[in-house]
């Protein structure tokens, strides 16, 4: 059962102004805590019933407040994050997207293994302003249980829309949830999202589109430093989603291990205690926390992280930031950790290996204008190319060009090479993959992933079987500014 956070409300959606002094996040935290509750928005949770999920998301701009004054946030059903969507493996899903924005939008069902075509995970369709679209698909009965992510994927506007606030967590119930120790844990979905300040001054300090925009306001489910409760002896299942545009989360919980039980695509085989958990944009993780410490309050921290390692930059923030506070309340008979979860089978031997090199460069690009990159230098857009942006294997995204053709049912290794000065989280739609090695070192345990961080200068080998669904889809950098600036390729499964 999902337990909402104790509310220490939220992004001031629908609130009258809270005063216009420009205050830092810490002070704002105090301001927000004493503020009135926001006006009610749509339901916080939308769930399926009797095998059918009948859902509606309305994308809209909503007046709210940020430090420094009023702001326009982008919301689903008046919320940022949008409502928690909860379905079961085997469900029929109908989701009407209504677009009340002034620009086109669409949806990506990040991590779901469903067709990339038609009314399913079709990121090539676009819903115009004022329009609507009915997404409809059926989840397989054996679809892995996990935490997935619904967000816009409108090329060129993805970063604006996600950074502005559009996202919803999507829980698929299934195998993992039936493991008794997991079922006994109290569950909380935590959507991690940063927001720009009302002034937007951070952009002027260089955190623009090329690096990927980050905001100084760190929120969890739209709240700053919300409280989490755990009974002594209890188990808390934190289901973490990085719904930020570019920000990395390097998570640690004071005094406690984070016991990893699931990654992007579902359960791992054996629980794995971690001191820290690094989540790139688009990544998810389920962790168990044991209430086995001296009762008190413990901070869930975001530790400093350097994501432009080859630029000689310091981490953008040099001190830990508090994301949420865990407090002990009550006592229960001690709950054990699960000993085993769900096996993650090895994938078949790959039939071939491909290499994808990510970089920023004067790109060739849209509309079939392919030129010698040397001719692009200095003059930028001479010869009609895209000018500066991001490329895979030298080419910027072109929706009309198929970059990679694979056979349905085949298994491939992809060597993802980051030949850039900054990190790139690589995301593949529709089919989960397994990370085989990083920088030549084998991974310790097989995990289902759909997004993997490839650090500046690093190489990561992934293995993927293209199962079940033919059609056209994409792979891209999940720093969404990078995606919008060309770091995306088209995959044809046939």
């Amino acid at each position, binding site marked *: 059962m999902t337990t909402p956070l104790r509310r220490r409300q939220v992004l001031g959606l629908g609130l009258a102004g809270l005063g216009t002094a420009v205050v830092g996040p810490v002070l704002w935290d105090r301001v927000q805590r004493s503020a009135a509750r926001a006006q009610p928005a749509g339901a916080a949770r939308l769930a399926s019933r009797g095998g059918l999920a009948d859902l509606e998301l309305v994308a809209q701009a909503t007046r709210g407040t940020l430090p420094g004054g009023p702001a326009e946030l982008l919301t689903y059903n008046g919320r940022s994050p949008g409502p928690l969507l909860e379905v079961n493996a085997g469900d029929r899903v109908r989701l009407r997207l209504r677009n009340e924005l002034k620009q086109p939008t669409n949806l990506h069902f990040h991590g779901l293994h469903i067709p990339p075509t038609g009314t399913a995970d079709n990121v090539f369709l676009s819903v115009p302003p004022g329009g609507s679209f009915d997404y409809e698909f059926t989840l397989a009965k054996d679809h892995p249980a996990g935490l997935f992510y619904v967000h816009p994927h409108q090329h060129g506007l993805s970063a604006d829309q996600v950074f502005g606030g559009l996202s919803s967590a999507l829980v698929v119930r299934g195998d993992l949830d039936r493991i008794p120790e997991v079922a006994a844990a109290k569950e909380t979905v935590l959507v991690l999202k940063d927001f720009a300040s009302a002034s937007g001054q951070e952009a002027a*300090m*260089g955190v*623009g589109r*090329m690096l990927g925009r980050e905001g100084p306001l760190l929120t969890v489910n739209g709240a700053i430093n919300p409280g989490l409760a755990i009974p002594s002896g209890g188990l808390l299942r934190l289901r973490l989603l990085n719904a930020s545009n570019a920000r990395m989360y390097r998570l640690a919980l004071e005094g406690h291990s984070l016991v990893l039980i699931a990654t992007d695509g579902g359960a791992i085989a054996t629980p794995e205690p971690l001191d820290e958990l690094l989540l790139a944009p688009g990544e998810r993780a389920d962790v168990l926390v044991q209430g086995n410490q001296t009762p008190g309050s413990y901070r869930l921290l975001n530790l400093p992280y350097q994501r432009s390692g080859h*630029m000689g930059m310091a981490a953008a923030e040099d001190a830990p930031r508090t994301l949420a506070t865990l407090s002990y309340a009550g006592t229960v008979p001690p709950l054990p950790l699960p000993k085993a979860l769900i096996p993650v089978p090895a994938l078949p031997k790959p039939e071939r290996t491909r290499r994808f090199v990510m970089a920023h460069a004067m790109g060739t690009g849209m509309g079939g204008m392919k030129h010698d990159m040397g001719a692009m230098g200095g003059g930028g857009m001479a010869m009609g190319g895209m000018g500066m942006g991001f490329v895979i294997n030298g080419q910027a995204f072109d929706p009309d060009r198929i970059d990679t053709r694979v056979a349905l049912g085949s298994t491939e290794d992809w060597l993802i090479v980051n030949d850039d000065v900054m990190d790139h989280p690589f995301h593949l739609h529709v089919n989960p993959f397994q990370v085989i090695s990083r920088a030549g070192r084998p991974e310790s345990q097989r995990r289902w992933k759909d997004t993997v961080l490839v650090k500046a200068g690093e190489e990561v080998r992934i293995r993927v079987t293209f199962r079940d669904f033919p059609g056209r889809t994409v792979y891209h950098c999940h720093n969404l500014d990078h995606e919008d600036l060309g770091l995306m390729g088209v995959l044809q499964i046939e």
Partner: protein
Amino acid sequence: MNSTSFRGHSRFLDLLLGVGAVAAVVSGGGSLAARASAPALMPVTSYRSASCGCCTGWVKHMRANGFTVRDVVVADVGVVKRRLGVPARLASCHTAEVAGFALEGHVPAADVKRLLQKRPPVAGLALPGMPLGSPGMESAYGKEAFTVMAFTRTGAISSFSQHAK
């Protein structure tokens, strides 16, 4: 040879940089013709990592505006930034030196010329990040407004010039 020791990075980066250091080369010999025809401006030395895709765009911009530029590939540009006192929060991709001043990132040539004419009591100029539309960052994806900052040896930062979208 400006390949330098590496430090301040995580372990895997150290490994990679260790490999990179061996391969680091001084490049810039190709600019002899440009140097010969350049007006009498102070020479610029620019330091970048081999994998930087935009740094050479800035070098070309500077050469097109009359500067003689030595384009140096280093294993860890962070070492250069620390030597020149570039505040970490103003960092960009490449770092350059001219007449004892540091130039961080895609600073427009016009700003560099004004710096050399006026000689304000600063350690250098910085354009933090890599704003789209700045010199060497021209892009059909758009332009961003940006502000060139001046910084001192003690880390004081002020606005030097503002550039609209």
